[in-house]
């Protein structure tokens, strides 16, 4: 069986003895054109690109991603634009696997089937729906699998072992472990050792799944978590865009440099 783009990316990183670097930026932030340019620029350094489908009741997100989301919505981003951005991005030279990350209401209003079909059509490799947990996501994740799209299950420090086993059983190539009790972008309040201890417990349940860690990861903290299959940096990048705008600097260069520097920490 042919490996999915996501699975083969993890395989490649493993051969290079380093974790995969996953980035998260919000589609349309700071505007449609620039968000595409940011994506294009960071994909030379990132392994997988998560693209946020902004929603204005994003209860899982902290201030940094909220700011990016409000900016993108204010500047007129629509779901069809996000699909257009993905389509264009996937045709660029350094294109990496794309994961759309968003909230369930965007999918409900677009129509579940139509959403999945469109994802397949434009080349989306995976989906993270923050507020569609297991078992609520059972039907939807099956639909994704049928269309060769990875539905990415989330695990958290509050997830019991019994529940973890069930979720992992229903998962595809990649699983996302939330490092701590927090919204996105919170200060890392748990020690990296403790996070890796939990990480190893999950890995023991099924070694073949690619497990990434996210929430609270910055350039300062990322080296300490290098043992993971993959690490996600999101809020730090969103914050860099906000800072660039405030200081009237080029957000594309700034974010791209930041990702480059983060990537260097993982070699």
């Amino acid at each position, binding site marked *: 069986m042919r490996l999915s783009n996501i699975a083969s990316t993890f395989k490649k990183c493993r051969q290079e003895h380093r974790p995969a670097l996953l980035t998260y930026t919000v589609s349309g932030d700071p505007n449609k054109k620039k968000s595409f340019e940011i994506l294009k620029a960071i994909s030379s350094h990132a392994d997988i690109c998560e693209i946020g489908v902004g*929603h*204005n*009741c*994003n*209860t*899982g*997100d*902290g201030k940094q991603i*909220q700011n990016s989301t*409000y900016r993108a*919505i204010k500047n007129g981003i*629509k*779901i069809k634009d996000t699909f257009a951005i993905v389509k264009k991005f996937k045709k660029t030279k350094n294109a990496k696997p794309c994961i759309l990350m968003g*909230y*369930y*209401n*965007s999918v*409900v*209003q*677009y129509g579940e089937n139509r959403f999945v079909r469109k994802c397949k059509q434009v080349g989306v490799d995976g989906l993270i729906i*923050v*507020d*569609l*947990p*297991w*078992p*609520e996501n059972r039907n939807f994740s099956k639909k994704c699998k049928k269309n060769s799209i990875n539905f990415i299950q*989330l*695990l*958290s*420090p*509050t*997830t*019991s072992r019994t*529940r973890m086993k069930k979720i992992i059983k229903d998962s595809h190539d990649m699983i996302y472990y*939330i490092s701590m*009790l*927090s*919204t996105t972008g*919170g200060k890392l309040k748990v020690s990296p050792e403790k996070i890796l201890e939990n990480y190893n417990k999950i890995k023991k349940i099924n070694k073949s799944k690619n497990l990434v860690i996210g929430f609270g990861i910055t350039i300062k903290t990322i080296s300490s978590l290098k043992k993971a299959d993959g690490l996600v940096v999101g809020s730090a990048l969103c914050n860099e865009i906000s800072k660039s705008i405030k200081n009237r600097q080029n957000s594309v260069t700034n974010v791209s440099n930041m990702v480059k520097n983060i990537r260097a920490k993982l070699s």
Partner: protein
Amino acid sequence: MMKLKKGKLLIDQHNKDYLYGGKFGGNYVPETLKKPIEDLANLFEKLRRDKKFLNERDYYFKNYVGVPTPFFKLKNLTKHLGGAQIWCKQVSKANGGAHKIYNATVHALIALKAKKRFIIGDTGAGYAGKMLSMAAKKFGLKCKIFMGTKDIVRQAVNCRAMRKNGAEVVPVDSGSKTLVDAVSECMRYWVSNCDTTHMCVGSTVGPNIFIKICAWSTAQISRELMVQVKKEFGRVPKKLKLINCVGGGSSAMGFWNEFIGYDRNQVELIGVEAGGPKNSKRHAAPLTNGAKIGVLHGALQYVIQDAEGQIEETESISAGLDYPGVSPLHCLLKDSKRARYTSATDEESLEALKLISKLEKGKIRPSLEPAHAFSEAIKIAPKLSKDTIICVDSCGDQKKDKQIIKERLGHNL
């Protein structure tokens, strides 16, 4: 058409996915909240069957909340309108001045059982926040209230009360700066602190367990009303109409609970949403204005949104009704046609207050929320027979709205 199940409490009429009528409600929350929600649901299911806990609840309802609240006829208003009799259930007589005290008290008791020392809650009109701060003080819990900055200004009276009770008022400056963002921010805080903190959702909205706890708590209102109505009329009258304002829908759920099983030709349930300013497109009436089903704060419901699923801003003179969504329980009552929903504009609600103040001075002083319900009662009463009994839930006291009313009318009421 959706059908209600006979002999089963409305809050328990969900399927295994916690959906009412197969399509409203559920638990659409981030993974981190799954466990605390499950723990809370298990604890509540245990407590609601525990005689000791029920006695405790009843003790505090009686000695702290101050039940039963009065039920009486508005004789002058009835005479003036010349149709149906208008009666009032003065829930605003409960401790603190509104129905929010029932839910707040029960949540504080549950927090103690769950051994949580911190309690958080959202608020719009400020009553949910004020009552939670009161209950927190009473039961020795540390309390944080999330409130939109727009509401902090327009409901300053309640805001002061919260601080006086020792609660921290956390201003929420994102989005519309009203209730919807306060609820979002409160849920965000809970995601980060669910190991030490108990969350109280201020109305019958949110993930399933919060809908259940809230409606179960406010049901006290209709338990009393049933006794009072039977005492007054000897039985449930042949033509009874129960009118209640609906924002999230907690007071209406409590006001109607015991009467849902009656035939709708005998007991009509009328929910009045906030129609917003006259001649404005903005409103807070998802049920009346045919909003589409979407996910808001963890539950599927009728919600005011755009084609992309972004939650739209609402507008109402009444901060307590200024919410884009509505309880999944009300969605169920609407689709099963058990309740009828309509709306009243800001102006109609103010007119209703003026009339009540003129005719029933010294008797009742409803806030802007129940003013919406009174407006509907005033509208329909003249067309109805004298043996029709209209009962309006006066669920909030006017004190908090004094400033808004003065600004709008140019004088105090």
